[in-house]
């Protein structure tokens, strides 16, 4: 493998990796405030892409993307309000099954609305054949968009949790739910907010990758498995761990294609997931007990 190929695979890996990182962070945000793994996480990415494509028929691209993020955030908040808000102490098994049911409903609704076809947004800048040359490798401008937007999202959410009042309240809720409630924090509303935030992040990620990977109604399950792999790999609840793990998974997957048939690309990440679960469930970057703040 020469240098140009190496860079090409690396860039592809980083592009996918940032998406996985964002989905992984989405898992973490909801897990932190509720202890729930939201199996419908991948569907948020799909919804973001689909809604943006539909809105783009009537609106300019930036407005369509903003609209898609807002719509998906509303869907995320509604899901929480309808299905989760009023449950007093849901068990893990119950919540797994409920979120699986939700993911099926969103997928089927998308199938009825948009059909089987793949949908695609135009490139944000340039087009399919424009490329930036880097060490002999050709990099699509959209890949740079995807990496930049996802990186900005990671930085902004980190800043949000670190320095804003609302972010700190959500962290308080994650660290000690009862204690936070005693301090007068509106726990239930914070949980709703975490669903909206997580959905919005997924949707934005769905918009930036849509021009490269296309969007189809059934793409959510695969993304959910990968996002979960990333969340576990990085230590469940650990956002920066998820970012590092996302990049690792993206790059490993990308290079695996050069060695294995492309049909097994997904199998690689599942094998990593299983390996991690069996050997070190607290993740590569997590402590013995995964930190939740």
């Amino acid at each position: 493998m020469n240098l140009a190929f190496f860079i090409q695979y690396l860039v592809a890996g980083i592009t996918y990796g940032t998406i996985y990182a964002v989905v992984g962070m989405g898992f973490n945000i909801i897990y932190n405030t509720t202890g729930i793994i939201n199996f419908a996480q991948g569907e948020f990415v799909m919804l973001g892409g689909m809604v943006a494509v539909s809105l783009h028929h009537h609106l300019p691209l930036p407005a369509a993307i903003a609209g898609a993020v807002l719509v998906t955030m509303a869907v995320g908040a509604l899901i929480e309000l309808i299905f989760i808000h009023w449950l007093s102490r849901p068990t893990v098994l119950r919540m797994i099954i409920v979120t699986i049911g939700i993911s099926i409903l969103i997928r089927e609704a998308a199938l009825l609305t948009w059909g089987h076809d793949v949908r695609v947004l135009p490139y944000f800048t340039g087009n399919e054949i424009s490329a930036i040359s880097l060490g002999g490798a050709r990099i699509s401008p959209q890949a740079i968009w995807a990496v930049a937007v996802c990186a900005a999202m990671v930085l902004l959410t980190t800043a949000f949790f670190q320095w804003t009042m609302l972010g700190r309240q959500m962290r308080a809720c994650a660290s000690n739910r009862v204690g936070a409630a005693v301090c007068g924090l509106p726990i239930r509303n914070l949980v709703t907010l975490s669903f909206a935030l997580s959905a919005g992040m997924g949707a934005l990620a769905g918009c930036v990758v849509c021009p490269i990977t296309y969007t189809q109604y059934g793409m959510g399950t695969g993304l959910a498995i990968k996002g979960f792999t990333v969340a576990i790999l990085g230590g469940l609840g650990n956002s920066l761990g998820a970012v590092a793990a996302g990049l690792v998974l993206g790059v490993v997957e990308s290079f695996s294609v050069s060695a294995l048939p492309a049909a097994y690309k997904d199998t690689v990440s599942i094998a990593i997931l299983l390996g991690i679960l069996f050997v070190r469930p607290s993740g590569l970057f997590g402590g013995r007990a995964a930190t939740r703040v």
Partner: protein
Amino acid sequence: MRPALLRQVVLFLAVAVVFQLLAVAGGQVFLLTQLTMSLYYTLVVLGLSLLMGYAGQISLGQAGFFAVGGYTAAALCTWDLAARRSSEWVAAAERTGLLTARTDAFGALVLTVHPWPSLALAVLLSMALAVVVGIPVLKLKGNYLAMATLGVGTIVYSIPLGTARLGAADGISGVPPFPLLPGISVDGSPRSRIANYYVACVVLAVAMLLLLNLVHSRVGRALRAIHGAEDAATAMGIDTARFKVRTFVLGAALAALAGVLLTHFNGAIGPSEASVMKSVKYVAIVAVGGMGSLWGTLAASLVLNFLSLRGYFGTLDDAVFGAILIAVMLFAPEGILRIDLRRTLGLAARGPRAPAEPR
């Protein structure tokens, strides 16, 4: 064997006979085809019910074991060895009765593995997979267990899809009939519809008898203890890991058996049988039937599978199962039958029953 359990199973068979007579009397014999398929799918669901409802362990990969059974049978029974008859191995296998010869539509000789050894191999293969997967996977709990089984299910699904020998996206068709007993063979011909219905009923009744006996024994109590509080069960000296894996393997064996028989009945199998959605449907059925209620699960499975196979849900089939999952888990997490009995009639269930889910 408790007489009460035997009576329940006899009652089930009696109801089955009534259904068959009604179908014949009403001139609706064709309904028995879907009913037979539902009976086989129920076998898969019962295995999952033992794992989920009694031991409290979720599996999103149950369809994988059905597919291992069905695909093994389909591949072996359609693998024509006639051209390799000169090989010593093939000749030896033919002498020992492992192979069976027939002529195809053009009169050419077809030599394939006999359905009986292929059934045995299919079930053993599925059980072996369950052991290999189950030992590490069942150490996990909650979210981790769900994701791990989902991952295993996805890998199993990708195998037939990515393998040309297994027909890739088309699956395998032309699976020959299974000569079960002299005069009775598992196949999809309309002439043997009633016989096949009874074959499925008897297989299910035998499995039910076995499972009922199991859950009312020491093993069943151990499983319920694991469901209630795994740490406490371990402290009481129950080898929780072993019980969980054994339950998983038993469920895999039942699923594979159903896979083999249904594949011979349909004459074909496709990759959708291994899909994650199929596994999720099985979970939905167990949820409807009630965690820890074999008869409830059996009833829910027969009704839902039958409606689904007859196409009553149309293109909304998956959505219906998704909605069922949510509704049951939100409003009746212990199953529809159980909630109705206790809430509506005000009757508290007596005797041993599965405790509420652990946190």
